[in-house]
């Protein structure tokens, strides 16, 4: 296993250099990338964009947006971006509407370092986007008002004592993240979400609001207006890094949801040489670890070795963590997206 990965890593490096050199020689092409604002775009700019420009001479422009789909869909006839970071269900949706370039696995040598289970593929076997990094979903807790031991199970969210003290995410995410997780722990999964509905309903009954942005929940959690909520681990790490002392993260005993992110390329995007090189480049261990450092997102390149401080922060080795995270079939999630959003909306409004 290790030797194969080592070979793969060497191949990646060689291939990337091979791909990058012609571009360096000609100096044409650029990356125009869209990313979520704040930390995400800064991570890509510093962790990948600047090193990429240093190596290949090609400029990297990163533009911030609240969401990938509006602009990508609006510009479908004449794409101005040739790169975007997105969620797996964003990618599945866009692909279904014919808006993305697809790839042959062999054209992106670095893909060999990513376990196959995490590569999003189209029915015809082509790769829809290139995995970038992942994080996971659990429960964030305000430790002034509750203890992490109060939320060792997802089902603790339904406890009557939390009425009016929790928060829940928008139906678009609640239906793809929370509902899927709740279904899984109740014996269902992303195909059969019915077992997850009671807990979803109970969470809604206990929630005081639907949070609409990271910033909003950050404020509500740190101010104690909300005691706990299903939330992203990197957000809690971020709050702690910025000095918040009263927020903590719990990975429930049933496990958490793995949240992967990938790079997608709009159909007919410009500068193919540039984006193919970029897609490979970001998977190199050095860039993957730099992004981990900047934002807490965990690497997909299985040869990237985590430092002790990162392992400590997770609380266990990466291998053990992955064993406790559930990765749904995102294609199924995306396909049923619309009806499940409606379902969750109606569920939460009663």
């Amino acid at each position, binding site marked *: 296993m290790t030797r194969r990965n080592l070979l793969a890593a060497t191949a990646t490096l060689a291939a990337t250099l091979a791909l990058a050199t012609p571009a360096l020689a000609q100096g044409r092409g650029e990356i125009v990338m869209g990313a979520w*604002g704040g*930390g995400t775009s800064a991570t890509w700019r510093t962790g990948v964009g600047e090193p990429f420009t240093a190596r290949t001479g090609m400029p990297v*422009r990163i*533009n911030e*947006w609240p969401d990938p789909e509006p602009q990508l869909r609006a*510009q479908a006839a004449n794409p101005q971006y040739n790169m975007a970071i997105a969620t797996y269900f964003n990618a599945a949706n866009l692909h279904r509407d014919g808006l993305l370039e697809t790839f042959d696995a062999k054209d992106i040598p670095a893909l060999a370092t990513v376990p196959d289970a995490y590569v999003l593929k189209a029915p015809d076997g082509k790769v829809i986007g290139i995995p970038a990094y992942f994080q996971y979903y659990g429960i964030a807790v305000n430790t002034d008002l509750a203890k992490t031991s109060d939320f060792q199970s997802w089902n603790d969210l339904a406890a009557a004592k939390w009425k009016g003290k929790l928060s829940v995410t928008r139906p678009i995410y609640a239906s793809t993240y929370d509902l899927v997780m709740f279904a899984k722990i109740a014996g269902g999964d992303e195909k059969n979400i019915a077992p997850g509905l009671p807990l979803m309903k109970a969470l809604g009954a206990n929630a005081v609001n639907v949070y609409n942005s990271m910033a909003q929940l950050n404020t509500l959690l740190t101010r104690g207006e909300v005691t706990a909520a299903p939330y992203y681990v990197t957000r809690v790490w971020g709050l702690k890094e910025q000095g918040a002392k009263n927020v903590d993260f719990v990975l429930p005993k049933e496990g958490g949801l793995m949240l992967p992110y990938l790079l997608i390329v709009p159909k007919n995007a410009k500068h193919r040489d540039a984006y193919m090189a970029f897609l490979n480049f970001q998977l190199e261990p050095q860039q993957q670890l730099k992004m981990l450092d900047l934002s807490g997102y965990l690497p997909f390149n299985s040869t990237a070795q985590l430092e002790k401080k990162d392992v400590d922060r997770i609380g266990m080795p990466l291998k053990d963590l992955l064993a406790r995270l559930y990765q749904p079939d995102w294609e199924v999630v995306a396909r049923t997206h619309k009806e499940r959003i409606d379902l969750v909306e109606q569920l939460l409004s009663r």
Partner: protein
Amino acid sequence: MPWTAAGRTLVAAVLLFLPAPIVIVVMSSFTARGYISFPPGELSLRWYAEFLASPDWLMSLVVSLVLAALAAAFSTLIAFLGALVFTRKRFPGAAGFETLVLLPLIFPHAALGVVMLGMAGMFGWTGRFPGLLLAHVIMTVPYAWRPIVSSLRKLDLSTEEAAMSLGARPLYVFRRVTLPLLRPGLVTALLFTFIISFDEVTVSLFLVGPDVTTLPVRIFAHIQDSGSPVIAAISTVLVALTVLVVLLLDRLIGLELFVESEQRRRPA
């Protein structure tokens, strides 16, 4: 109007209520912590430094200011020309026409995004400044229309006729009599349209691109992902800038924005 102590208290309360959340935001902008907190705790100017040193933020501010100024100018002009004819000439279906003009205001703002996208797409202007400008002009025309029509309707035509009977030519009358009397309406129109355009986010979300993005869109994008106080710093800078501009206008031009001060109108 019965002006009781209760009335005065109410007005004072409202004048306190309006700036209240702004004051909180301003104070939160000075925090050294990485997330918006009130009380700010340890103080720092780092978020101002981050904003003023960021070409992306500054660029989006400039784009928003230019966009709002152009949108305000164009929509006020377009509305003014149309309103002149509308209020002076009788034609059938006038009420219906006015409803059409107000349609971008009547039709829910959230749904306008797709409409504007269709329009911008017609000219190949998606993700480009002209597309944004066109959308903002259309959205702000109703806001310019109402104050201008209101002002025009109040205008006493006999003033103009008197001036002309004294021998002044129509264009002179227009410039020296009509326009000054319409000033409150025109200034209100410019102000409303500027604010609406400057603050607009849900339509602009569809129309921006890597080369042009507005400040509200950027703020919206920022908070989706992170809660850094830089947005509080940006808001404070905007407030400070406006206060500065008003102060300057006051000192330099002595401009009373809306008012025909009563002293001027009273006959000698």
